[in-house]
C-alpha cells in the first residue's frame, strides 16, 4: 500500500463555460439552419447580400459543427479527462485561452461568412487569418491536454482518452494541410491545390472532419458518460479497443467516396468505397457496445431522460454509420450524390448522434456542475420527445426529397428523352417536403429552447459559492512494474498476445500518440502521393488555359456569394447527366481551379458547361431577378451585383497570387486591371447593344457574366485559339 495521497481539485469552471457556449451557439447555429431551410421553401426570405442562402449555409454548418459540437466536445473532454487522469488540467490559463480563443474564432466566423469571405471549401470556409487562429488555439488545447496526461495519477489511459488523443492529433493534421493557401489580401486566399487534387484534399479533410470532429470525440464522450449515467461499466472494454484502432485505421481512407464518378481517378474512388464499407463493422461494434452497456439497466431508461438521450444518440450513430457505407457504394452514390439524401444522412448524424449525446451529457453534468437538482425532469422529457419527433419529421421529409430528386433527374420517357428536362420542375416537387422539414427543424429547436430554459433555471438555483471538493489520489510511482499475468497460456500466439506492447502504449501517451498519428499519416500518404504525382491521373488538355483577370474576379464573386452551395460544376459520365448538362467533365479541365468548385449539392442545375448557353443579357436579367426569367425559380436575386463596382486594383494581387501558384498568367502579371477593364468594356457594350442596362462596364455583374460564359468552354476550342489570362 502507498499511504501517501496527493490532494487536489478539478477545474469545473472551464466545463461550465464550455457548457454555456455549447447551448448558446447550438441555438444560434440551429436557428440559422431553420432560416435557410425556410429560404428554400420561401425564397422571399433571402434579405440582401448578408442574409442570402449562399452566405448563410456555411454559417449554419460551421456553427453547428465547430461551435455547438466543438464546445460540447471541449466541455465533456475537460470534465472527463480530469477525472479519468486524476489530476487538474495542466494549466488553468491555457484552458481560458482555449475557451476565449475558440469563442473569438466563432464570432469571426459569424462576421466574415455572411460578409462573403470564404475559401469555398466545405467546413473549411474560414479565411486564412482565422485558419491560423484555429491552428494556434488548437495547439493551446493540445498542450493543455497532453500536459494534463503528463501530470496524471492514473497509469492506464482509459479508452475515452485515446479517442480524444486521436481527435486532437488528426484534426490538427487535416486542418493544416487542407487549408494551405496563398493569401491575395487580408481576407482572401487561393488554395495551393487545384482541381482534382484540391477536391481530393478537401474531401480527405471533409470526411475526416466528420470522423475526427464529430465521431471520435463523441465516442470518447460516449465511453465515459454512458457508463456514468448507467452506473455500470462499458459492455466490452475489448470491443472498445478494437473499435478505436479500426476507426483510426479505416476512417482516413474513406474521403474519396464523396467524389464518385467525378474527375477523380477511378482507383482512388474505389479505395474510398472499399474502406467505407469496411467501416460498417467497427461502427456497429461501437454502437452495440454502447447499447449493451445498458444491459440490466433498461428500467432506468424509462425513468431517466439522460439515458433516453443516450439511447437515441447511439441508435442514430448506428443508423448513420450503416447508411454512410451504403452511400459510399458507387451505384447507390450515383443516385444519392448532389441530392437532399446526403443532407438527410448528415442530419441523422448531427441531430441524432451529436445533438442527443450532447443533450444527455449536459443534463447529466448540469446538477453536478451547478451543485443542485436539475430544475425539471419533465421539461427534459419534453425536450427529448420534441427533439425525437422533430428529427424523425426532418429526416423523413428530406430522405423523400432526396430520393425524389435523384429519381427525377435520371428519368427518361418512352422516347428516350429526359422526362423532366426542366430543372425547376424537379425543385417544385420537393416543396411539400421542404415545408415538412422546416416543421421538423422548428420542433427540434423548440426542444433546444426548453433545454436552455431548464439549464438556466438549474443554474439560478446554484449555491452562493460552488463547493470545490478536495480529491485525493496516489501519485504514480517513478518506476512501473508490470504485474504478473499467471493465467495466460503458453505458445507463440500467446507470447504475442502476452506481449506488453499495447499495454505499454496505454501507459505511454507519447508512444501511443505517435502510433495513432502514424496510422493516420501513412494511410493519408498512400492515397495522397499517387493522386498528386502520377501524371496519368490528370491528363492535360492543351486548349485549357487560365481564367482572364476579369473572369478570375468574376469567379471570386461566385465564391463570395456562395453559388457553389447550390450549383455543382461537375458533370458525371451518365447519359442522364450529359443529356441535361452537356459533355461530362474531364480532370484536365480544372488544372487552374484554385480552389475547385465542383460542389456537393444541386439545389440548382450544374453549371460546368454553362458558358455560351445563354446570351450575356440573359445572365444579367437572371441574376437581377431569377424568377422573372425562370418561372418558379427559388434562386435568390442578386441586384447588388448591378450596383457594386468591380475592385479593379485588387485584381492584380489576385492574379499575382495565382501566378505564384504556377498558373501561367503571361502578360497579366503586369497589367491585369487594364486587361480586366478592356474585357469588361466589351461585355458591357454587348449587353447594352442587346437592349440591356447601360453603364455596367465597371459593375460586378460583368465580371460574373465573364466567368459564367467561360465555364466549360475550353474543351471546345482549338489549342491555338484558346483564350486565357496571359494569351
Amino acid at each position, binding site marked *: 500500500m*502507498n499511504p501517501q495521497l496527493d490532494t487536489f481539485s478539478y477545474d469545473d469552471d472551464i466545463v461550465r463555460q464550455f457548457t454555456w457556449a455549447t447551448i448558446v451557439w447550438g441555438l444560434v447555429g440551429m436557428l440559422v439552419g431553420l432560416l435557410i431551410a425556410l429560404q428554400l421553401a420561401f425564397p422571399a426570405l433571402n434579405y440582401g447580400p448578408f442574409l442570402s442562402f449562399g452566405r448563410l449555409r456555411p454559417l449554419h454548418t460551421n456553427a453547428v459543427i465547430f461551435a455547438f459540437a466543438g464546445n460540447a466536445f471541449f466541455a465533456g473532454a475537460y470534465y472527463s479527462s480530469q477525472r479519468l487522469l486524476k489530476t487538474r488540467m495542466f494549466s488553468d490559463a491555457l484552458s481560458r485561452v482555449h475557451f476565449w480563443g475558440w469563442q473569438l474564432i466563432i464570432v469571426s466566423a459569424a462576421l466574415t461568412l455572411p460578409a462573403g469571405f470564404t475559401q469555398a471549401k466545405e467546413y473549411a470556409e474560414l479565411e486564412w487569418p482565422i485558419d491560423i487562429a484555429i491552428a494556434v488555439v488548437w495547439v493551446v488545447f493540445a498542450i493543455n491536454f497532453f500536459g494534463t496526461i503528463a501530470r496524471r495519477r492514473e*497509469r492506464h489511459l482509459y479508452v475515452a482518452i485515446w479517442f480524444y488523443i486521436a481527435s486532437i492529433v488528426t484534426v490538427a493534421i487535416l486542418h493544416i494541410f487542407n487549408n494551405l493557401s496563398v493569401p491575395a489580401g487580408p481576407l482572401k486566399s487561393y488554395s495551393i491545390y487545384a482541381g482534382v487534387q484540391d477536391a481530393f484534399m478537401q474531401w480527405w479533410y471533409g470526411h475526416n472532419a466528420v470522423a475526427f470532429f464529430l465521431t471520435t470525440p463523441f465516442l470518447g464522450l460516449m*465511453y465515459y458518460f454512458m457508463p456514468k449515467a448507467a452506473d455500470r461499466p462499458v459492455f466490452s472494454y475489448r470491443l472498445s*479497443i478494437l473499435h478505436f484502432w*479500426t476507426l483510426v485505421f479505416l476512417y482516413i481512407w474513406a474521403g474519396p467516396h464523396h467524389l464518385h464518378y467525378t474527375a477523380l481517378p477511378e482507383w482512388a474512388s474505389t479505395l474510398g468505397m472499399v474502406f467505407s464499407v469496411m467501416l460498417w463493422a467497427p461502427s456497429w461494434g461501437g454502437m452495440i457496445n454502447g447499447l449493451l452497456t445498458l444491459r440490466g439497466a433498461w428500467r432506468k431508461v424509462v425513468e431517466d431522460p439522460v439515458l433516453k438521450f443516450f439511447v437515441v444518440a447511439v441508435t442514430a450513430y448506428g443508423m448513420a454509420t450503416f447508411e454512410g457505407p451504403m452511400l459510399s457504394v458507387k451505384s447507390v452514390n450515383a443516385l444519392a450524390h448532389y441530392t437532399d439524401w446526403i443532407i438527410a444522412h448528415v442530419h441523422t448524424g448531427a441531430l441524432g448522434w451529436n445533438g442527443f449525446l450532447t443533450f444527455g451529457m449536459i443534463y447529466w453534468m448540469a446538477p453536478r456542475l451547478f451543485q443542485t437538482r436539475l430544475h425539471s425532469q419533465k421539461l427534459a422529457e419534453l425536450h427529448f420527445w420534441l427533439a425525437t419527433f422533430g428529427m424523425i419529421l426532418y429526416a423523413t421529409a428530406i430522405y423523400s426529397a432526396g430520393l425524389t430528386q435523384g429519381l427525377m433527374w435520371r428519368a427518361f420517357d418512352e422516347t428516350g428523352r429526359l422526362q423532366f428536362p426542366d430543372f425547376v420542375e424537379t425543385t417544385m416537387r420537393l416543396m411539400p417536403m421542404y415545408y415538412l422539414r422546416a416543421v421538423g427543424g422548428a420542433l427540434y429547436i423548440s426542444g433546444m429552447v426548453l433545454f436552455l430554459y431548464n439549464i438556466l433555471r438549474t443554474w439560478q438555483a446554484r449555491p452562493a459559492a460552488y463547493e470545490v471538493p478536495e480529491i485525493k*489520489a496516489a501519485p504514480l510511482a517513478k518506476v512501473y512494474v508490470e504485474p504478473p499475468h499467471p493465467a495466460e497460456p503458453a505458445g507463440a500466439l500467446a507470447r504475442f498476445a502476452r506481449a506488453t506492447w499495447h499495454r505499454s502504449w496505454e501507459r505511454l501517451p507519447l508512444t501511443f500518440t505517435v502510433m495513432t498519428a502514424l496510422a493516420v499519416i501513412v494511410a493519408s500518404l498512400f492515397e495522397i502521393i499517387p493522386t498528386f504525382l502520377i501524371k496519368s491521373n490528370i491528363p492535360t488538355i492543351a486548349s485549357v488555359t487560365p481564367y482572364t483577370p476579369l473572369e478570375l474576379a468574376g469567379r471570386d464573386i461566385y465564391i463570395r456569394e456562395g453559388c457553389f452551395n447550390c450549383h455543382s460544376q461537375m458533370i458525371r459520365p451518365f447519359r442522364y447527366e450529359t443529356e441535361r448538362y452537356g459533355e461530362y467533365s474531364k480532370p484536365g479541365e480544372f488544372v487552374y481551379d484554385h480552389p475547385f468548385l465542383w460542389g456537393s449539392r444541386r439545389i440548382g442545375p450544374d453549371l460546368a458547361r454553362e458558358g455560351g448557353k445563354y446570351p450575356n443579357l440573359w445572365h444579367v436579367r437572371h441574376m437581377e431577378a431569377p424568377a422573372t426569367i425562370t418561372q418558379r425559380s427559388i434562386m435568390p436575386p442578386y441586384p447588388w451585383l448591378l450596383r457594386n463596382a468591380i475592385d479593379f486594383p485588387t485584381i492584380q494581387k489576385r492574379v499575382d497570387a495565382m501566378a505564384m501558384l504556377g498558373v501561367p498568367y503571361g502578360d497579366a502579371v503586369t497589367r491585369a486591371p487594364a486587361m480586366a477593364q478592356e474585357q469588361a468594356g466589351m461585355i458591357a457594350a454587348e449587353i447594352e447593344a442587346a437592349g440591356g442596362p447601360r453603364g455596367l462596364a465597371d459593375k460586378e455583374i460583368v465580371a460574373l457574366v465573364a466567368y459564367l460564359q467561360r465555364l466549360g468552354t475550353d474543351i471546345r476550342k482549338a489549342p491555338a485559339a484558346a483564350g486565357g489570362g496571359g494569351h
Partner: protein
Amino acid sequence: MRLSDIMAGAGLSGYAQIALILFFVAFIAIAIRIFWPGRDHEMDAASRMPLDDEHPQTARTGDRS
C-alpha cells in the same frame, strides 16, 4: 527527370492495395491481441475507470511502491 516522372514510373497506384493488406494484417493482430483469453481482470479494471471517481484513490497494481 522530374519527381513526377519518377513517381509515374513507380506504379504507385497499386500501393493502395498493399496498404489495404497491411492494415488488414494490423487489424487481425490487434484483434488477436485483444481477445486472447486471460486478460479479463485487466480489462475489467480498465472498464471500471469512469466509475472510479470515489476518493481517496489508492495506487493501482504496478504503481505501488
